């Protein structure tokens, strides 16, 4: 009964499973709020327990049925399931974007034509992306009025002509703002700020040829202490010792915070509208 099915029987099983799922959740929905809260708490607890137990329980022990950790064989199906379920969230962001830009067009707000451009770009990318993936055969594509080559060309324009350059350029604009901020905003008013800037200058000069040219006269042999005054060696030393220790200390602080947050989520101690199940407003 639980093996793979084929043909019409497959679709019957799929339909029945979907219907059963809907029925279960319909029943759960009509339960009082306190049961729903408990359900969320139990699911969160079991979810958190899975990976941590799988790791902390030994791989083999005589107490386990079959002698092996019973959770280990579930890691792969769980990984696959989470990957697929996460994949189904793909439209969440699109719905939000669609609502925002749809409203812009419907209410003819200033710049509504930009929202039209958004929809054209979105739909084109989805259509031609899926088309070039699943209709590679030129003859099949020709039946719809487009040759296979044309489909690929449109996708090429969208990916290599628009997506790549636009994405790379948007990030690169930050370079100018950093240079502008360096002139207009970075003020060395305290000794600590001066200390920070000296460290920044050493790192910046140590990474580039001009900095290495400045200290090229200093010895290169590792045994000579003066070789640490070569700016590239000073930068590497800074990265691997002083800065490394500071970043590690910050990491430890983050670890404690992340652990506390993970515990709060696992034990459903977290409060706030996202984590609480409330009476639905009608």
């Amino acid at each position, binding site marked *: 009964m639980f093996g793979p099915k084929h043909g019409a029987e497959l679709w019957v099983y799929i339909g029945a499973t979907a219907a059963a799922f809907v029925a279960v959740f319909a029943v759960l929905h009509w339960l009082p709020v306190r049961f729903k809260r408990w359900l969320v708490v139990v699911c969160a607890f079991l979810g958190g327990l899975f*990976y941590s137990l799988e*790791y902390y329980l030994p791989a083999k022990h005589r107490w386990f049925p079959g002698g092996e950790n019973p959770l*280990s064989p579930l*890691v*792969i199906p*769980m*990984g*696959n399931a*989470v*990957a*697929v379920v*996460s*994949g189904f969230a793909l439209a969440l962001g699109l719905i939000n974007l669609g609502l925002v830009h749809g409203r812009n067009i419907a209410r003819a707000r200033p710049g509504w034509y930009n929202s039209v451009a958004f929809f054209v770009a979105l739909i084109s990318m989805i259509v031609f992306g899926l088309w070039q*993936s699943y209709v590679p055969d030129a003859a099949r594509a020709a039946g719809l009025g487009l040759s296979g080559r044309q489909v690929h060309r449109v996708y090429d324009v969208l*990916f290599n002509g628009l*997506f*790549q350059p*636009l*994405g*790379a350029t*948007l*990030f*690169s604009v930050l*370079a*100018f703002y*950093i*240079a*502008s901020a*360096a*002139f*207009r*905003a*970075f*003020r*060395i008013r305290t000794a600590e700020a001066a200390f920070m*800037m000296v460290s920044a*200058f050493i790192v*910046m*000069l140590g*990474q*580039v*040829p*001009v*900095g*290495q040219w400045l200290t090229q006269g200093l010895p290169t042999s590792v045994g000579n202490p003066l070789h640490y005054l070569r700016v*590239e060696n000073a930068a*590497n030393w800074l*990265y*691997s010792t002083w*800065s*490394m220790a500071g*970043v*590690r200390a910050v*990491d430890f602080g983050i670890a404690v915070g992340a652990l506390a947050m993970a515990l709060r989520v696992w034990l459903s101690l977290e409060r706030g509208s996202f984590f609480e199940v409330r009476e639905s407003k009608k």
Partner: protein
Amino acid sequence: MTGQGAAERSRHIVFALVWAGVVITLVWSVPTRMPPSPPAQMLYDAIEKCPPDKLIVLSTSWDVGTRGENGPQTAAIVRHLFKSNRKFAIFGWIAPPGPVLAEQIAQRLAKQYHKRYGVDWVNWGYKTGLAPMIQALPKDVPAIIREDLFHTPVGRIPVMKGVRDYRDIAMVIELTGTGSLDTWIQFWQGVYGTQIGYACTGVMVPEAFPRLDAGQIKGVLKGLVGAAEYETLLGVPGDGQQRMTSQSVVHVLVIALILLGNFMALRARRKTKT
């Protein structure tokens, strides 16, 4: 209004200086051999020590936004793998375009080294699922990956023959502009002892060193400079070395702007006091 106009003028002058500095030094540039730093040397040595019969995974968790740094890094590492006849798999799990962008680089370099897709490398494509998927991957690679970027079942790809789990993977090299390295350390290096290499953008470099110090990663490529250092190790100049002169100029420019800005602010404060 005058203050605003002056501020905008100074902004435009700074932008023009950056443009001029980069454009001039790109056109009149000399590929600059960068002496390899210890972290880049360590990564190179770690790859050289990988058994040739095992797969190396290039986790290309970078997007178009960090192509300026991760692109040359990917090219340098792929070139090394082709030169040393090591088989590798391109894989993405953070940024959807990562595997496609890396595939463009691999296809371009494959022509130079007469390498063939499916025989010398494979592209697993992009998979969602984040940490749970990465956690499941070392136990059964074909079950998680299933098919490559071109929809070919992995069982039919020659280079994937015999690749079952973490024991068939020599090293994972994470190329990224995000904090995705820690997941590999947690679920691969920490559990199975798999070697991890790291090629990151400049922003992530300081965070790499605690991991390097603890032995959790075997080497680091530091942004575009790391790519230039790696090209020196390979003896083949590429984008990294070509762009080092421009990198020099903008670094000196930023330092000069900081000093100039502080000098002008100090002078203005003194004028106000008198």
